[in-house]
């Protein structure tokens, strides 16, 4: 996909390896290839869903995008700026524009700060407005995310999981960012509360024009929330397509298996839903060829030999899949 004018985030050949060190001298013995050659771009105001089993590198990808981690290789362009080329103070300035929401509503808020000071923290860090203006904006933010401003002088432990996630969201939108990476923001919540939080995120998107990179291991959440979906397996994107296209016409055997595994409402029995066999291989020592081939029900000879490239399908340009079955 080429970067056009309304592309806000462009990730190209991004790699993030974690070194594995052993022994007294901490010799570098191997790498965890958590993100291995990933490319995609996101248009302004849209939502890209990142889906995949746990351990496939979604969080690492998200954290590398917001520069919690330095990439091992590849580039990230945000609003046309190459994040790697920026010096410290420019990057710090640009950080106002992208934020992250984390999965665990219990560890994402400092237990020793009042929720008001938590939400105000980004304003303090970037010295936005006067003290009074900050207070006022925090109060407004609380209303925006559906919390009573009267409760803002309390501590995080006094709130439920859903309320805490609202506080995280308030903190994330405090600087009116253009991009938010939401790492499994509803995975730790009850189903009934998940819907409320997703609604809140959607409303904020409409109101403030925020772009989301939305991470989840749950395709049914992705299905209701994203414009575009990227499926990850062992650090690589194996398929990426607009939401309707992906769910109507999944190509990669892994995507097909994931979609088959979505529980159907009302269908209590798990009839003829084959689940994926086997374990996810280790990202330290990924299988040769296509990383999915040891578990693939339809593998051909090529699969264990060559690594498939992520290529557009014949007819459409925005549905890409990395599978030898479609490579001619």
């Amino acid at each position: 996909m080429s970067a056009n004018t309304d592309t806000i985030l462009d990730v190209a050949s991004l790699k993030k390896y974690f070194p594995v060190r052993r022994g007294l001298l901490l010799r570098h013995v191997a790498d965890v290839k958590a993100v291995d050659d990933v490319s995609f771009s996101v248009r302004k105001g849209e939502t890209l869903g990142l889906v995949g089993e746990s351990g496939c590198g979604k969080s690492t990808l998200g954290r590398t995008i917001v520069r919690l981690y330095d990439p091992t290789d590849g580039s990230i362009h945000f609003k046309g700026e190459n994040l790697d080329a920026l010096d410290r103070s420019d990057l710090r300035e640009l950080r106002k524009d992208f934020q992250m929401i984390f999965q665990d509503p219990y560890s994402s808020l400092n237990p020793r700060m009042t929720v008001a000071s938590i939400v105000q923290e980004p304003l303090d860090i970037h010295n936005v407005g006067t003290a009074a203006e900050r207070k006022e904006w925090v109060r407004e933010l609380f209303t925006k995310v559906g919390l009573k401003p009267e409760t803002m002088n309390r501590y995080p432990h006094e709130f439920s999981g859903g309320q805490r996630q609202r506080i995280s969201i308030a903190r994330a939108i405090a600087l009116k960012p253009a991009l938010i990476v939401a790492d499994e923001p509803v995975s730790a919540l009850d189903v009934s509360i998940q819907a409320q939080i997703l609604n809140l995120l959607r409303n904020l998107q409409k109101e403030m024009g925020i772009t989301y990179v939305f991470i989840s291991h749950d395709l049914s959440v992705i299905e209701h929330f994203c414009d575009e979906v990227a499926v990850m397996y062992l650090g690589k994107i194996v398929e990426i397509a607009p939401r309707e296209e992906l769910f109507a016409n999944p190509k990669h055997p892994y995507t097909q298996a994931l979609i088959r595994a979505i529980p159907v409402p009302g269908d209590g029995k798990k009839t003829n839903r084959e689940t994926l066999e086997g374990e996810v291989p280790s990202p330290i020592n990924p299988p040769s060829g296509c990383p999915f081939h040891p578990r693939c029900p339809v593998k051909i000879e090529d699969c264990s030999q060559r690594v498939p490239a992520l290529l557009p399908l014949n007819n459409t340009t925005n549905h890409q899949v990395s599978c030898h079955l479609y490579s001619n």
Partner: protein
Amino acid sequence: MSEEELQSSESQAQPMWRIVLVQFLEHKAGVVGIGLIAALALIALFAPVFSMILGQEPNISSIQNRYLAPFEKPATVAVDMEIEVENFIEENEDTLEGLADRILKSDILSSSEVREAGGDPEEVLFILMEKRNEEGVREKVSNNDLSDFESVIYPPKTAGRPHILGTDEVGRDILIRLIYGTRISLTVGLAVAILSGLIGLLIGSLAGYYGGVWDGMLMRVTDSMLALPLIPVLIILAAIDFNSLPLIGGFFIGGSSESVAKIIVILCSFSWMTAARLVRGSVLTVRNREYVLAAKTMGARDFRMIIQHITPNVVAPLLVAITLGVGNAILFESALSFLGLGIQPPIASWGNMLTNAQELIHEAPLLAILPGSLIFIVVICFNFVGDALQGAIDPKSIKR
């Protein structure tokens, strides 16, 4: 939460320390513990005042009054002639000038006797005291304007103050020794716990923050020291005379408090490891907490990260560990002193008070019971306080 509650709590943010305080006060045993500790600390602080009120000194022994029962009055006042005379001379040097002449004039001593003393007022006084019970001497002393010496030559024959808790094997007052022992034990306990907490904080945060090779090295040292059998090592160290060591000898204060300084140093060097491990662990976990990552994404500088996010969540558990460490340090101090390797007599410490008590456990059980139960109570109190603090300081346990 009801509406009213929401309204009432709106106005002000409760500072964290108040929440912690309220939580702490809910822990009954902890409150009792800190009350007892505070009381003991006050008594220890004002030990000299108690000494005055009770009329007892911790280090004055009296052979005639060994093993007195509680409240038993000492049989006779054991006035040590020599000490009394020396004190008197020190205080009244100017009036002593003409003593020899005045005595000659009063005709108590013959001129040859005075000459024998060589005019030395001290000698003269001693000779005078030897003759004090001869007939007519007392009258001569009071009639010949020597009355200012009368109190030395004829000390008042009051019976001594009773020893409230009796006396020990050399006739020292047990109560005042317990009070002075409290001073030593609390000082050693607090100093060791706080100092080793600080050492642990330094080493643990270096290891946790820098990680890598630093972490490996520091933690290996920590582990090896943890693996040493503590009591034998402490005994060996305590038996070394630090002053005779070539390099570090000079750092030790000589004199009476030397054994106190020494035991603090020895105990510190073997009790920082738990704190170091704890701090390292907290630094590592806190560093990867999502709120720290969130602050980093927002562009927070190191200073804010350390002050606002890391420190409070590292110091809180360390505080608990320090409190619990006081009890341990007191126990070790007592153990070493009991073995005769810690606080050296005549300085009183609960541990060394036990040393001699054990031989006489049947004849004078109080000698063992009193310091023993003080150790027991204080250690338990510190554990209760640590427990309460742990509950109060952990934000998850805060309920409303």
